[in-house]
């Protein structure tokens, strides 16, 4: 159980969630990055401009 850093909603990480995974906050819809599992912690996902590099 952890909180959305944007809107504070409590978020339950489903089993099988991996570190580095991007999930969407069910309340405010912002994209969050799973930074660690125990303790579970989330950060705003990095904004990456669409890229088509090598």
């Amino acid at each position, binding site marked *: 159980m952890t909180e959305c850093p944007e809107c504070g909603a409590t978020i339950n990480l489903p089993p099988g969630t*991996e570190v*580095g*995974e*991007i999930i969407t906050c069910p309340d405010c819809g912002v*994209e969050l*990055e799973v930074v660690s599992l125990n303790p579970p912690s989330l950060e705003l*996902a*990095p904004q*990456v401009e*669409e*890229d*088509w*590099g*090598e």
Partner: protein
Amino acid sequence: MLVVKFGGNGNLNMDSFCADVAFMVRNGYKLAVVHGGSKEMDALSEKLGKPPLFVTTPSGFQSRYTDRETLEIFIMAVGKVNKLLVEKLQKLGINAIGLSGLDGRLIRGKRKGVIIAQEGEKKKVLKGDYGGTVEEVDAKLLSLLLERGYTPVIAPLALSEEGEALNVDGDRVAAAVAGALKAQALLILTGVPGLLRNFPDESTLIPEIPGEKLEEYIELYARGRMKKKLLGAAEALRQGVHLVILADGRVENPIRRALEGHGTFIKQGGEGWTTLPWKMLTPAASTESTP
């Protein structure tokens, strides 16, 4: 002044390519060569027990995840292609000079650092990536060398703000070099005759695309690596290059054949002509016109 991109993958013929570069330079054309290295890179990474990790970005692009170890293998792979091209050109009497974007800060790039990868329905953040986008090319260094009769051969590495080496896309390097040098034409040689209406049927070659319609054609016909080449073409047009030709790098005299009309011609302002007999290209664009 002509910039030619010699593809990194596919079965391009390095010998016939170098022979044609030599022909053009001997006949007074100023040429800069940009090359890739993905075929060499994939082979080397396998042999070194670090198989390439390709990730697909959410919008469907394939991107090579380049951590530091992969970057150093990439440096070796494109370094080898660079010096083999220089060796072959020197053997043909052309004074080639091999540079990467690190050398003399030839290419400034921006480090991505993060790739968002689509794995099944999961989206993943991959950090520590040394891939980058091309920001700027130093035309001064290239002109200094071109004016003294050197033929630059450029490897797809750039230098980030923080002074780190970056793996960058060869097509975008070629576009940026063509823009920086105000080249008359950018020629991208690949393993297909040009943009095909329906790949891989080579009879559906699209001979000509007016610059302002390029985005449309990209949406309609371009997939995967070809899409990157066309985005490179678009970038070159934006930077003032009037003509971009996508042509077949597997044939004999690939440059002359392309300039004689075999390939997809993408032209700014879209006037009616479809061929650019290589004789028409002013040989050595006089040095004044090179910035």
